[in-house]
């Protein structure tokens, strides 16, 4: 990756594509590529996420959503391309960029033999935050997310929903400008999902940006003001949710864009016919 010249190229691109009065995008991705052996996971995507937006990244399994988000958050090195978050190139100045972003990965593997409280303190100390600030914010986040009672419980004993919520609390602790969430509503019960939605809505209300991936079109349709559809490592649709939908349900548009897949009606007549 040409890290030295990449930011200038990205900025030139933005200067051409955005009107002079528009605020710079919170996230700007240019020519992002990643291969795993012979398999192309992300085939050179360009994407701008407007500042203060609630941005949904949708796509079928294997479309490259997680790989793209991991490259955007400096967890996975891209083969090519640039990512600029809040004006900072993620791969040429990772420490500054990381201070401005919060991340909740899909599998959300945590140090689960720490308690919820300890995990938050750990994250605060990793970022060299003041102990008093960490304590006050941790208490507030645990309250809002309904985890106050479980603050002294090891994360290994948390349910999936609680794990997502404590992961989200860790991602929000340092008040990042941009939040990347990979499938935040996966395996989450409706009550926890509502708590997460409430926090995220309040967060974007303060001018911050949320980028999240999801399979649940209904959630994306309700929450997101912008959406991009990723298919086979490429962006196949991108814009405001209303524009992409074109007056139709997002799920219909999505299925049309990525293809309906194999006909599930034929074959499989043997299913359910025996227990062997």
């Amino acid at each position, binding site marked *: 990756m040409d890290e030295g010249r990449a930011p200038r190229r990205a900025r030139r691109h933005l200067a051409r594509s955005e009107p002079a009065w528009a605020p710079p995008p919170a996230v700007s991705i240019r020519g992002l590529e990643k291969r795993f052996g012979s398999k192309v996971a992300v085939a050179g995507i360009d994407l701008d996420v407007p500042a203060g937006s609630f941005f949904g990244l949708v796509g079928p399994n294997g479309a490259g959503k997680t790989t793209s988000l991991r490259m955007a958050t*400096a967890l996975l*090195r891209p083969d090519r391309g640039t990512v600029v978050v809040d004006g900072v190139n993620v791969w040429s100045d990772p420490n500054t960029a990381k201070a401005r972003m919060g991340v909740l990965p899909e599998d959300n*593997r945590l*140090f689960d033999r*720490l308690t919820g*409280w*300890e995990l938050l303190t750990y994250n605060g100390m*990793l970022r060299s935050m003041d102990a008093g600030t960490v304590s006050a914010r941790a208490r507030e986040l645990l309250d809002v997310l309904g985890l106050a009672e479980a*603050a002294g419980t*090891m994360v290994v004993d948390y349910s999936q929903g609680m794990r997502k919520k404590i992961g989200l609390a860790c991602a929000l602790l340092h008040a990042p400008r941009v939040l990347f969430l990979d499938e935040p509503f996966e395996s989450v019960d409706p009550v926890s999902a509502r708590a997460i939605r409430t926090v995220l809505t309040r967060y974007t209300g303060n001018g911050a940006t949320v980028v999240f991936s999801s399979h649940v079109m209904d959630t994306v349709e309700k929450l997101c003001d912008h959406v991009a559809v990723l298919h086979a490592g490429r962006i196949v649709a991108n814009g405001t949710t209303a524009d992409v939908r074109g007056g139709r349900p997002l799920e219909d548009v999505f299925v049309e864009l990525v293809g309906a897949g194999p006909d599930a009606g034929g074959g499989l007549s043997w299913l359910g016919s025996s227990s062997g």
Partner: protein
Amino acid sequence: MAWVLVRLKFVLLRAGLRTAGIQGTLGAVFALVLALAIGALAGGLFLAVRLLEGRDATDATAGGFALLFLVWSLGPVITAGAEGTLEPHRLSLFPLSARQLLPGLLLAALVGFGGVATVLILVGAIIGMAPASPLVLVTLAAAVCQLLLCAAMSRLLATAISGAARSRRWRDLALIIGPVTALALNVGLQFVSRSFQDGQVVSGRPSPVFETARAFVRFLPSGPAALAMGNAREGRTLLALISLAGAITLVVAVTALWGRTLRRVLTSAPVSGSLQSGAAPRALVPAWAPFLPRGRVGAVAAKELRLTWRDPRQRVAAFSSVFAGAIPLISLRVLSIGGGRLVLLAAVPAFLFGASACNQYGFDGPAHWTNVVVGGRSGDDILGKNIARTVVAAPLVVVVASALSLLAGDGSYFLAAIALAVAAFGITLGLGNIVSVVAPIALPDSPTNVFSSGNTGQGLAATGPAIGVLLVAAVLMVPLALPLALAGAPGARAAISLVAAAVGAGAWYLGWRSAASRLVGREPELLARLEKRD
């Protein structure tokens, strides 16, 4: 089904070696050479049994089989984190009965370097004990029984301890079962050996203690197989067949018990620790460790200290390495010689504890993304891990050195022992830091095997560098330990102690700097290695 599982183990080993890269290949070659050497040496000793007659031959075989049996039983505990087996919990959803599953898992447990060495040893025993009659079939069957018994007992203990290590009630007991048994075995062997020698010297005949010991080994679970071989060699057909039946019954019984234990572990919810819902949150930094630095280094050190006790895998690994170091210290033979110099052995636990730091990111596994996503200086994480390790090692060394000084009745070597421990810990930790960064391997959190390093041959990649560090560090320690042990004048000892401590500190610093500089800009690559699925 058994053959399917054995093939599965081979496939997983091959795949594991492919993904483990050059370290895995080197580790595998090293482990194979080691297994062949041990197998050939011990098998050669069994061949020598041919020179003995009657009861002596049977008892020598029984003693050898007992030792083999105990090594298999305690192996997973002593070499915590280096074992690679088929993980039964991955097969638990298949509609397979225990009768279908267990024989395959048992045979699969033998696929590995332990199995290679054991087969070589047993070939030596067969040749050493085989009669020139059809009863040679009993000899062969008894050897197979011994092989299966070793594997079954190894699996039974590993599963039982893994289950117990996850429960609050049993975890402390589970921690000490293996190491204390190993310690007792060591002391017992020393005791029997001394009794034998003393008896020979005094009366020209073995002492009563030795006679008792040789009778005792016949009654261990490995005894019937040895007796079957002995009786077959003596031509006592009926007794040989009865002994063989006993050996077969034991294999079936231990395997069945293993099956029951496995079912219980797989269908019980693990109890993670003492901190339950509604408990008041504790600070991350323990109250007894206010000296930990603030910021990232302190965060990592505090996290490591918390997890060393709470994570069953780390708990068992730390405890085992400490006890492995303590075994030679408490050996009767060691305590009977050496005088004040004995205190220098306090460096042994420090040496082993430092050498166990060859895969410091392994226990973090994929959770290491938490640190990567924050950014910051890469060297801080290793420094935090090193500080936590030092916090555990320092009091241990002081306690061992003090205890040995008291036992030896000579405190003049106390400071020299501390200096030598600093050297041992610094050298091994410095090397361990480099290996941790160069060859990180994620250690899976298996519900049925806290000693597991994955079932894909990763154990080879994990064990190879660790043994390499042990050897290199041992060579580096010789020029420090030898002059310190030989120096008679206190002044010379003090000067050498200073040099030793400085070498230890310098070696650690170089290792830490080297590891930190290797990590700069390569955190995503480290994370990718730690996220490799087992």
